[in-house]
């Protein structure tokens, strides 16, 4: 079993719909959570960063962390065709200083149709 599970998709939604993405994880020590967006043939770019549990909102993006269920989510409101990309979740138990590392999900491919 992978430490971080993420549905590969593709997830197809009409323009303007809410995109709902999630990851489940098995390591209860994870407390730093990130979402990255990766366009085709490009490097991932950081979208959202959350520490511990709770919600965080940034424009059209909302990240949620439920540590009791070991479940994180990313919501994209008013989706646009430019949101079509692969979304990767990532997490770690400790800060990245001193060689600690991120664990990534496999990514969910999202298609927003005009």
């Amino acid at each position, binding site marked *: 079993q992978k430490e971080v599970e993420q549905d590969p998709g593709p997830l197809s939604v009409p323009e303007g719909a809410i995109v709902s993405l999630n990851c489940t994880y098995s390591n209860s020590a994870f407390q730093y959570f990130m979402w990255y967006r990766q366009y085709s*043939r490009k490097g*991932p770019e950081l979208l959202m*960063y959350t520490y511990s549990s709770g919600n965080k909102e940034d424009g059209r993006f909302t990240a949620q962390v439920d540590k009791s269920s070991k479940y994180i989510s990313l919501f994209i409101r008013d989706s646009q065709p430019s949101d079509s990309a692969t979304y990767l979740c990532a997490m770690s138990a400790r800060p990245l200083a001193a060689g600690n590392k991120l664990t990534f999900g496999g*990514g969910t491919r999202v298609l927003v149709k005009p």
Partner: protein
Amino acid sequence: SQTIHQWPATLVQPVGSPLSLECTVEGTSNPNLYWYRQAAGRGLQLLFYSVGIGQISSEVPQNLSASRPQDRQFILSSKKLLLSDSGFYLCAWSIQSAGNTIYFGEGSWLTVV
């Protein structure tokens, strides 16, 4: 602001040939540096990370090696490429002292033929 440069962007190499991918970071000092590989349709695999000049940790036994000759320079190498080395290679960095996120370069597409 910090930027990361990675090159070459694309390369096609024959089996058995050497490889050198280079990455530099600007606008920060003493970063943690990483090399990841992303095979087609698969997740990110951490290959190497470095917390300082000359300090390299390998995550996966393989045909590749990494070096950090300068504070903000990270190089991925191979003496003899295999077909299985094909993939998308990503350099990344994080803040040494307190960073909790990593930032990726644009990546290098390697096709071994």
